[in-house]
């Protein structure tokens, strides 16, 4: 095994720790997003552009995923930090890399469940320290110790998958027949539908659904890119805010699950 493989694996493990300890509420999550991972790992492995392309393709699957009530349905950073370095090392294309990433995303979600369960220990200890008026102990059990626990839970699996990954993946890819590779690529271009559907259902207001179709067919007919549509969309949103009627002027406590 080459030293560079080990170093890259260690870096990916470290980046996984940054993006799963949740230190920095919205920052930590963003660091683990496939687009960011793609940029960072691509730069490290000397192919920034391809890293970004791989990250972007994977992001399409994960961008709509949120964690309602703290439950993590799939871990984007685990998926990205295993599949992107392996794809860069083996030359796997973006569609196949996305399919490869899926099981690692689910594996990562299992780690979050472990984390939630283990962390009850720290709550118990915080309460014990409180009883004893050991305020320093309260702080330690609410900061450093949980951070270190996350680090251990998340570093090891990503590190090991990276170490074992490349050769295993290469061996498997060589034995896959042509039709199956094509099938995997087709699946790769269908899976983003999941991310978009979740994002759409979270926005969740039926009466503004036509805007989805407007965005869709602007691209299909006129060939404009998503950035152009974002500009039009921002204008429409501002117009609505200042000119539109208020749909529900009363208190709306159920905004989040209004379907």
């Amino acid at each position: 095994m080459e030293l560079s493989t080990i170093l890259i694996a260690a870096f990916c493990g470290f980046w996984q720790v940054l993006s799963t300890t949740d230190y920095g509420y919205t920052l930590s999550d963003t660091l683990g997003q496939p687009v960011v991972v793609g940029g960072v790992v691509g730069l490290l492995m000397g192919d920034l552009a391809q890293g970004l392309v791989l990250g972007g393709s994977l992001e399409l699957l994960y961008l709509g995923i949120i964690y309602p009530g703290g439950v993590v349905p799939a871990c984007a950073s685990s998926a990205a930090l295993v599949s992107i370095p392996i794809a860069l090392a083996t030359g796997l294309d973006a569609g196949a890399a996305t399919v490869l990433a899926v099981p690692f995303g689910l594996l990562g979600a299992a780690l979050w469940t472990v984390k939630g369960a283990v962390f009850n220990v720290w709550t118990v200890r915080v309460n014990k320290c409180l009883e004893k008026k050991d305020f320093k102990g309260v702080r330690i059990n609410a900061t450093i110790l949980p951070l270190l626990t996350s680090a251990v839970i998340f570093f090891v699996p990503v590190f090991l998958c990276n170490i074992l990954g490349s050769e295993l993946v290469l061996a498997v890819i060589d034995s896959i027949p042509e039709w199956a590779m094509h099938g995997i690529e087709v699946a790769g271009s269908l899976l983003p539908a999941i991310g978009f559907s979740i994002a759409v259902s979270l926005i969740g207001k039926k009466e503004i659904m036509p805007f989805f179709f407007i965005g869709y067919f602007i691209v299909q007919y006129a060939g404009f890119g998503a950035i152009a549509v974002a500009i039009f969309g921002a204008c429409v949103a501002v117009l609505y805010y200042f000119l539109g009627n208020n749909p529900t002027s009363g208190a709306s406590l159920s905004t989040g699950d209004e379907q």
Partner: protein
Amino acid sequence: MTEKDSSKQLLTKQDVNKAWTKWWLYAEVSSNDVVFQGIPHMLSIMDPLRKLYPDDEDYKDALSRNSQFYNTEGTIGAVVNGMTLSMEEERAMGENVPDEVIYSIRTALMGPMAGIGDSLIWGTSKAIALSIATTFALAGNVLAVPAALLFPLVTYFIGRWMYGLGYDLGRGAVMNMLKSGIMDKIITASGILGLMVMGALSAENVGLELMVEFTLANTADPISIQGMLDSVAPGLLPLGIIGLVYLYLKKNNNKYGTLILLIIVLALVCSFFGIV
């Protein structure tokens, strides 16, 4: 409730901002399955509480009062944290604010705020920032990284503002916000932007082409189904797939583990028979 008389305040603006930053850093760090964000909330206001309660026994009671079950969305929900801090301050200054009032107001408001925050911050703002980042990334453009980082940057300052708002206006703040309907308008406006971007990205990135062709007896050229579909409107097939996925997810409460497997298996089978 009117704005607080500043001459009677024990905490400075700096104390409040520091508490927000600590909350932003730790909101999910030590959360768990039982009291969720109770411990992070307590941790974030340890310093201001010490200032309010110099006596160890009072301080201890305040800490355990604030470490009870709490679960909200950290950015929009920060208004509730700020409000709690403001009630603790009133209490420390001798106002009659019983434990139950602090606890029940916090518990009553964390749910609605979580609903708004999940939808506005995590559902819409994050999706918009990441969509734009993805468009750059797919073109191999390094602007993808700063575009993604806009999300934490903007939400940090939104949260800081919400925290301060909760603190300044006290327990009336959230009620006023919900009643005014402004929140609802912001959610709808950003939903419009979010949906248009999602539509555009779906068009760019979800793809499916049928390879099946028919040859009729009286025509020379084979008729391709894909060609027929395209003559109606471009991109109908991927749109249909998105519709099916959407309905499946709605029915199954956004659980998609099985769906991923189903799509992969179907794609493999269709590829084997040369349909796609």
